[in-house]
């Protein structure tokens, strides 16, 4: 623990999540002729929100190709291609569509290695996009990490920054060991990150969790874009009220860093989980399990969980704004947890920052 894991030294730069994706895709294709990218629209001018643009032209349409609307079949094709020696990167422009491929993912991909006694490996990367906001509605808004992470055999990541993309994808693709389902957040694509992030604690593998900020009052375990929200909330609370929030980027839903989380909770005694999906049977539940199985007495207050409201996603903006966790709510809940009372007296941030991104985002989808 505590040492920075790096596959290669990189100069400092500012790069968007999208560009990090593009670079990772590009480099993977450039380095290894067995890498292929397959997905609806990967070769069109929009190129999965800019993450694959131009790659078909550079590397050829045999390696970067459009596929029919056939999510289950194409996942099965990817599995077969992996058995045949390729490293397939499959894309779904909405996570929701990956649900059509659950049979191949859960019954086949997750089990292929074990079921045949370790005689095969099926290294592949399934990239899916969480499609939050702008009236996307019930079927373009889900964040099914829990459905995948429940199933042994699948590695599930939720990269929250350009850094995570570069490190995690880079390593996973070059090592070619396991099947990975990744959930990328659509609203992160436009966000620019300074890299390398001065990470406090990097996992020793591309899996595991990342300690993003140290703090002694409250532990926040967050996923995906909520890591950014948590960091903003933490910054605000530190300045406005001297509340020091420790922020753990869960990063890998299937392989959370148990020790990191437990050690943090042992120090702070207060835990908030902020996840992009529903709380029931989700990340919120799983983190509670880790704590409960280890030492629930470390908790000096009930755990607070924040996620999507327990409903499908409505399209009306007034409801959508209530549906998703906001910076406002996150900050408020952390303050309540830290102070131990609802009337915590901490001034909340102006409803600006990320929430603004959500409000203003109108596509392209």
């Amino acid at each position: 623990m505590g040492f920075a894991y790096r596959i290669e030294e990189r100069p400092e730069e500012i790069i968007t999540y999208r560009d990090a994706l593009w670079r990772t895709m590009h480099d993977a294709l450039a380095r290894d002729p067995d890498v292929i990218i397959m997905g609806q629209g990967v070769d069109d001018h929009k190129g999965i929100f800019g993450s694959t643009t131009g790659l078909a032209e550079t590397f050829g349409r045999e390696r970067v190709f459009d596929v029919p609307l056939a999510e289950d079949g194409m996942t099965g094709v990817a599995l077969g291609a992996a058995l045949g020696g390729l490293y397939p990167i499959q894309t779904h422009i909405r996570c929701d569509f990956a649900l059509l491929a659950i049979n191949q993912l859960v019954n086949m991909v997750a089990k292929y290695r074990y079921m045949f006694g370790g005689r095969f490996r099926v290294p592949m990367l399934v990239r899916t996009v969480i499609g939050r906001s702008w009236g996307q509605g019930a079927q373009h808004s889900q964040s099914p990490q829990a459905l995948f992470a429940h199933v042994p055999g699948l590695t599930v990541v939720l990269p929250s920054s350009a850094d995570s993309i570069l490190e995690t994808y880079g390593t996973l693709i070059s090592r070619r060991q396991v099947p990975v389902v990744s959930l990328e957040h659509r609203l992160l694509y436009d966000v620019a990150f300074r890299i390398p992030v001065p990470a406090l604690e990097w996992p020793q593998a591309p899996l595991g969790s990342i300690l993003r900020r140290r703090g002694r009052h409250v532990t926040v375990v967050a996923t995906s874009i909520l890591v950014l929200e948590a960091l903003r909330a933490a910054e605000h609370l530190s300045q406005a009220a001297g509340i020091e929030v420790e922020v753990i980027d869960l990063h890998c839903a299937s392989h959370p860093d148990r020790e990191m989380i437990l050690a943090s909770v042992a120090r702070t005694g207060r835990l908030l989980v902020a996840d992009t999906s529903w709380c029931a049977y989700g990340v919120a539940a799983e983190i509670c399990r880790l704590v409960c199985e280890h030492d629930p007495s470390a908790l000096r207050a009930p755990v607070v969980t924040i996620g999507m409201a327990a409903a499908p996603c409505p399209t009306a903006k007034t409801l959508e704004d209530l549906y998703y966790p906001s910076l406002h709510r996150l900050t408020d809940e952390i303050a309540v947890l830290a102070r131990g009372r609802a009337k915590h007296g901490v001034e909340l941030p102006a409803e600006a920052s990320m929430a603004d991104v959500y409000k203003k985002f109108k596509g392209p989808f």
Partner: protein
Amino acid sequence: MTFADEREQLLYATLRIRRVEEHIARIYPDDCIQSPVHLSLGQEAVAVGTCAPLARTDMVFGTYRSHAFYLAKGGSLREMMAELFGKATGCAGGKAGSMHLTAPEVGFMGSSAVVASTIPNAVGAAFAARRRRTNAIVVGVFGDGATEEGVYHESLNFAALHRLPVLFLCENNEFAVHSPRSARQSYDITEHARSFGIAAKRCGAGFDPEVVRDAVAEAVLALRSGAGPRFIECATYRYAEHVGIGDDHQIGYRPLATCNEWRARDPLLNSRACLERFEAPIAAEIEDAVAFAEASPWPTPDALLRDVA
């Protein structure tokens, strides 16, 4: 509204949808509609021609691109506009937006943003109609891209096996987003449907509501007589980009020439003069619907957790 003949009536209905969507495109940049829109501009005649021979109690299941079918089946324009605006008076109380329009009171049963996913629902509704002897028939509407999904195969097989009163209506605009059919399909859509033993025909004139109506009317008759499912592949053309209000011919994934060919055959563009007298009433109706939507209240927070289970 009075009409000289049926053709005029059909053209009126088609024009009305065109103007509604053009208006949506006009106001969309104001952000009053806070949800993605998949316009049917260019494809309206398919919806009008399909719904014309249907009874109110007949059912239609649609896709995310359903403004046209919703209106053609008789859905309220006011409620549609309010739905797009995210208002409580919308056809789904503001929970559906543009992609999930519904009007069960006139048999428009729902629409889905997951491609092909309402196709088996249409088949199931046809099963129920037959079993309950309601004499209703059901239309499942989908695009050419939807035929690639496995559930399409499963739906055709079950419908044919049970000889259900369902019409499979494929709006073939040759594209799924930016992908041409040649990049996605090894089969001919109509021939493939026939391999299930389904009587299938092609209608090349998806621009003409009357031609579509005639094709559908013939199928509806057969369906009501219990002759088993029918299939119609309607050639059509999408003028606007896949999602959003812009034109995208400059990008080059489809040639402007094709678009111009379709425009040249589009009766709404060719019969401008004869349709002139409908413009004012249609504009008034649209204005009324927008005013209704604007004046309507937002859903209240208690709606958030209502109707979940």
